[in-house]
Structures are given as C-alpha cells and as structure tokens.
C-alpha cells in the first residue's frame, strides 16, 4: 500500500543534486539567483551541459534521445535545478515543438530537427498569437499559399518570446478559408533566416525586451516543412498547448521564490518595527503561500502521472496552468509588498519579477480561456 506519487527517489535526487552542484557555472548561478536578465548564451551554456549528460529532455522517450523519466523523477529534476539556481530549460524546442514533431512529424523531420533541439543548435520560438488572434487563436490570418513545392507566407505574429534569439519558428498558418476557422490551419516550420522574416522588439511593462513581433513578407517555405497534414494544424496546436501548460506549473521556481521571500521576511522590518517574520498577519500570508505551493506540487505530480499514463496531456493541464500562474503572481506580489516602498527604485529584480509575471495569467491561453476549457472538457458544458 505504498502511495505511488509520494515515494521519494533519494538516490535520483542525490545524483541530480551532485551533478548540478558540480557542473552549474558559478557566475551563471549567481546571475540566476540575483534575478538578473539572462542572455542567449546563458541559457545555451546550461543547455549544452545537460545535453552532454543526456539530461536535456526529461519528458522525451528514449528512442528520440530523451530521459523517459517517471513523473516523480521529472519533478525532482526540475526542483533540484530550480533550487540550485540553474536557468530553466527553454520550453520552445524541448517541451513544445519537439513533442509535436515526435507525434505528428515525418521521419525525415524527426531526423532533421530533433537532434538539433537536443543539442541546442536550433533555438525555437512560437508563432501562434497574432494582433487579431489572441484568445480566439483560431481566427488567425497569417496566410500560407502553396506554390509548387513551396509555401508563400504573409502575415504577422506577435508576443513571440525571445524571437530575437531564435533560429526557427513553428507557425500556425491559414491554408484554407472555407469551413470552420479551426479547419483551415496548418503547422509550418520556418527558418528565421529566410528572406522576408522581420523581428521587431516589443518592450514589456518591466522595461525589458523579451517579446517581439515577427513579420512575414512573401516568405518562401519548403513544403517539406509542413508538419503532418495540411489543414490539420489545429489538432497539433492543441497537443502542443497541453504540453506547454503542464510545463507552466513551475513548482521548482516557486519553491525558490518562496525561500527567497522567507529569507527576506526574516530581516525586513514590518509595520511594528520587528521583522515581518514575527508579524502574525504577514506570517499568515506566507503560510497560505506555502500551503498553496504544497497543493500545486501534488497537483503537478498527479497531472504528470496522468499524462504519462495516457501518453498525452489532458484538460487537467489547464488546472495546473491556472494554479501555477496564480501562485507565481501571488509570490511575486507578496515579495514586492514585503519590500514596501523599498521596491520603488527601478530597475531592481524583485520589482521586475512582479511586473514581468503579470504575463503568467495571460500567456499559453489566458486563465479565462483555461476555465472555458475546463468547463467544456471536464464538466461537459
């Protein structure tokens, strides 16, 4: 009668912890823990270290070069990396387009793209949202017209995270206008260096350049870069979003943030002059955050286990996305409030984090859209 998902894998955790301690570069660690802005090379240096160890794709099957770890192991790995101050693994290749190519791509696409995702040679970005297609993603209008063995792509994507670093973009494009909007969408892989692709920065509310507009003007894309069948892209897109949402829980990161908040509360004076840690009101707030984090952690394990059982993410990922993003926001908010007006001088990382993470309840399908998904697919409305 062992409770399946709470069995700690001590040997695995020790192994991961020792590896991370031995290989994570000290300056990179400090940069992450200080909340500094990471450059492309920061992400890639850690990516290459994990790749060399064979640990870059915890959720991939072994046949494609992944670890095929159990949900508990994936959870431990993410937690140890986050607590140690390692940069997160960029999700665009490993968590998003990789699983789509594995499930729906051709053998040629698998051989061409998957090894380069693993090695870090290709940085991917996500071409989903458009100025007129946010929550209503299926109304997207970026067109791809077939001309012989090429598609000609015209249109605009937006909110494209770290497109300025990207070698490739996976795009939802319109290949048909008849029928339901969902029925004319295709999933296309586009080389960012192709003539006619332009990236324009969007500066976010925290003053940083994290997201972009990506413009396509008569961009020629080989038909061989179409994933699966033409006009079936919506199915692939939803599959990808499920994977993305499961990854949005961010349990390890939340643990680090909570530990930072607790450390801050122990020396930050509260309203009666004593440390916030001794202020009953503030303690209750931290206690609630910690309880919500415990809840998120168990939810995460339950959803990962379901996903592994079904070999596909389900609508439960939407619950995880809501809970994870709300907790991330609550942590950043409480941390900023702990600083009081000390949070005002800008830029400073903890304030930047609060501002930056307003995005969390909007991206990957706003939390209102997640509630629609839950209502439709889990409650039968």
């Amino acid at each position, binding site marked *: *009668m062992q*409770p*399946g*998902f*709470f069995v700690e894998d001590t040997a695995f955790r020790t192994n991961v912890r020792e590896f991370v301690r031995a290989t994570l570069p000290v300056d990179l660690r400090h940069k992450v823990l200080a909340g500094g802005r990471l450059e492309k090379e920061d992400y890639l240096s850690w990516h290459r270290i994990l790749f060399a160890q064979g640990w870059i794709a915890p959720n991939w099957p072994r046949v494609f070069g992944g670890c095929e770890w159990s949900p508990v192991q994936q959870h431990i790995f993410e937690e140890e990396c986050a607590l140690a101050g390692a940069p997160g693994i960029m999700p665009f290749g490993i968590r998003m387009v990789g699983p789509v190519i594995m499930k729906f791509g051709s053998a040629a696409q698998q051989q061409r793209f998957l090894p380069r995702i693993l090695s870090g040679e290709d940085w991917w970005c996500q071409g989903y949202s458009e100025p007129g297609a946010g929550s209503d993603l299926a109304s997207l209008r970026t067109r791809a017209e077939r001309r012989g063995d090429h598609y000609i792509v015209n249109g605009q994507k937006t909110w494209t995270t770290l497109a300025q670093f990207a070698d490739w973009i996976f795009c939802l494009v319109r290949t048909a206008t008849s029928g339901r909007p969902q029925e004319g969408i295709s999933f296309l892989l586009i080389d960012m260096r192709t003539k006619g692709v332009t990236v324009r920065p969007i500066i976010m509310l925290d003053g940083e350049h994290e997201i972009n507009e990506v413009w396509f003007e008569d961009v020629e894309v080989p038909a061989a870069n179409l994933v699966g069948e033409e006009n079936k892209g919506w199915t692939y897109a939803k599959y990808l979003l499920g994977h993305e949402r499961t990854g949005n829980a961010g349990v390890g990161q939340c*643990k680090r943030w*909570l*530990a930072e908040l*607790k450390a801050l*509360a*122990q020396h930050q004076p509260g309203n009666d002059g004593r440390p916030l*840690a001794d202020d009953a009101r503030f*303690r*209750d707030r*931290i*206690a*609630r955050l*910690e*309880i*919500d*984090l*415990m*809840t998120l952690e*168990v*939810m995460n*394990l*339950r*959803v990962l*286990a*379901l996903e592994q*059982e079904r070999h596909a993410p389900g609508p439960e990922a939407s*619950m995880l996305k*809501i*809970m994870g993003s709300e907790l991330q926001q609550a942590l950043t908010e409480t941390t900023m409030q702990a600083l009081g007006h000390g949070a005002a001088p800008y830029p400073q990382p903890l304030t930047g984090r609060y501002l930056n993470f307003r995005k969390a309840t909007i991206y990957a399908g706003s939390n*209102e859209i*997640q*509630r*629609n998904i*839950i*209502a439709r697919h*889990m*409650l*039968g*409305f």
Partner: protein
Amino acid sequence: MYSFTGEQQQFRDSLQRLLREDYPFDRRRGIARSASGWSVETWRQLAEVGALALSLPEAHGGFGGGAMDTFLVMEECGRALLLEPYLSTIVLGAGTVARAGNEAQRAAILPAVGRGERQLALAHYEPGSRYALDAIACEARRDGAGWVLSGAKSWALNGATADQLIVSARTAKGPSLFLVDRTAAGVGVRDYPMYDARRAADLQLDRVHVAPDALLGEEGEAVPCVAAIIDTAIAALCAEAVGAMAILLETTGQYLKTRKQFGTPIGSFQVLQHRMADMLLETEAARSMALLAASRMAGAPPGERSRIVSAAKVRVAEAARHVGQQAVQLHGGVGVTDELPVSHYFRRLTLIEMAFGDVDYHLGRFGRHLFDTQPQ
C-alpha cells in the same frame, strides 16, 4: 496520479454500490430523524462488507489497513453523506484503543468494534477549551487501585449512543485517558443534534468510579496520543469533504444543464461555467492535499505530521466553504431549501470546516514552524 491497488478499488466499488442502493437520500432523511440519529441496519451492512474492520489491526480481527484505506471509506461516506458514526467509533475510538491500549484492552474492544457490536466515542474537548488539546480540567483521582473521574466534556461525537467513552482527565501525572461505560453511575449525557443532522453530546462526570484497568495508555500521556488521533481524524475528514464536494460538483453541474431561464439552460452562461471551473479547481486542490495528508499519516514524525495535516485542513476547509456556498448559490432558490440534498451537503461541509480546528487555528499551527523548517 495516486493509483489505489486493485483490491482497494474493488472494495471502494462494493462500498459505493452498497451506499448507492441502500442509502438513498430519502432513507437518510428518515434516519436523521430517528432517536439515535443513525441506522443499526446500515452499521451492520458496513460491518459485513468489512468497512468497520478495514483499518483495525490484523491481530484483533481487522485487515490492518492504513490511512489510504480510511481515505477510501471516508470519501464514500462523504459522497453518501453518511450519518453513521464511522469517524467517532472507528477513527477516533478504535484508533485510540489501537494506539494506546494494552493487549487485553485491544483484545476486549477491537474485534467487537470490527463486527459492529460496539460503539466508541472520544470525550476530550471541554467547555471553553475551543480547539486546544491540552486544556484538560477534568480530574481523575486515585481511589484505592481504581480512579474517580469528575468534570465536564463537550462535543463528544455520537457520545450518547456509544457503549464506551474514552475520557481524558488529569491525574497527578497529567492528562490521561480512561475507558468509561456510558451507562456508569455518575455519567450525565446531554445529546443534541448538530446543524449537519449528526449527533454529539456534552457530558457531566460526577464522581464516576472506574476500575484500575480503565486507564488507557500511560498515565500523563493523553495529549500526544489524542493529538495523533485527531490528526488522523482530520485527514479522514478531509477525505470525507472531498467526497461531498465531488457530489456537489456533479449535482450542480446537472442542475445548470437542465434549469432553463431566458429560454436556455443556465449552464450556457459563461459566468456560471467559470464558477463551476473554480469549484472543480477547489475540489481537486482539496483532493491533492487530502491524499498528501493520508499518505503521510504513517511514519512521519509528529511535528511533520501535524504540519501536513494543518496544511491539508486549511486548504480543504477553504475549498469546502467555496464549493458548498457556490453550490447553494448556483441552485438559486431551491439551494436554500431543506428539500434538496445540496443544502445538506453544504451543512456537512460547513461543520467539517470548523471541526478539530478552523482555518485560523490550523494556519497558526502551520505557521508556528514556518521559519524553522525547510519547505518540503
């Protein structure tokens, strides 16, 4: 997700079938109005399917089940809104005897409990103690080889129908536990219904004489023992709440799909769909913490056990309040009537929210060690 063993699933299915077929809501309504407030017949059926013996030690006629097995039973109790004294007799009563009792006490009591022939109740709280576990004013004085107990006890669940009461009283060595026959001379019982239709009792002990072997466990060791048992009971109540919330979610969903206003089922309105999505989120959050608490009940050191139980109680209580209130709200006018089950589930969830410590109590208990333990 946690997967129960095939054996556990079979047991759950048979219990679910039994309660669905033999414990419809109309029957429950009649049972609630009966003199004892629970059904001897249902209790016998629970004994027959092995639910009563499930968590008792194998050496004393039980199946040696753990907290996860209790989780299964309690979740079904929650779904059926069962009135029978499972929590008081099995979790609190038999749990205390199994934990603190000597071999003779265990052998005398537990097999009879497992067969459904004996009922127990824990009488620990006192007037004015609120949720504190160490505020024991009740006294036990030596009387030759035996003891004489005097004092007042409050909120003893199903205390009026128990054959034996487990009473905490202070000796020279501190709070200790005693087995007291409910019908012993000097035991005054005031039975009352609670707002969830269950029963509890306040007790007056007026120079109640008990034999030397009435002492349950070590003298002076009542508080850590009761604390452990109440943690177990809280974990069990969390599971019960999850079962009750699941039913509210189902029935509210069905109601929204059939109730028409403005010419359309009200479930077509997005504002109501989002309320339902939030109720599901709350229920699954509660389930997660209830599972965590149950899975950590065995083997964890007391401090860690209490920390996790308090976390679970906070999260489950808040979910129970949210889901219960929203279920009533979404039912509209019929939600506030006695006629529909929804208000009865709401009342039970409200009581669970306050039982064995409310949110503030457990937030405080959890927060006490916030800065001296690392998050798990």
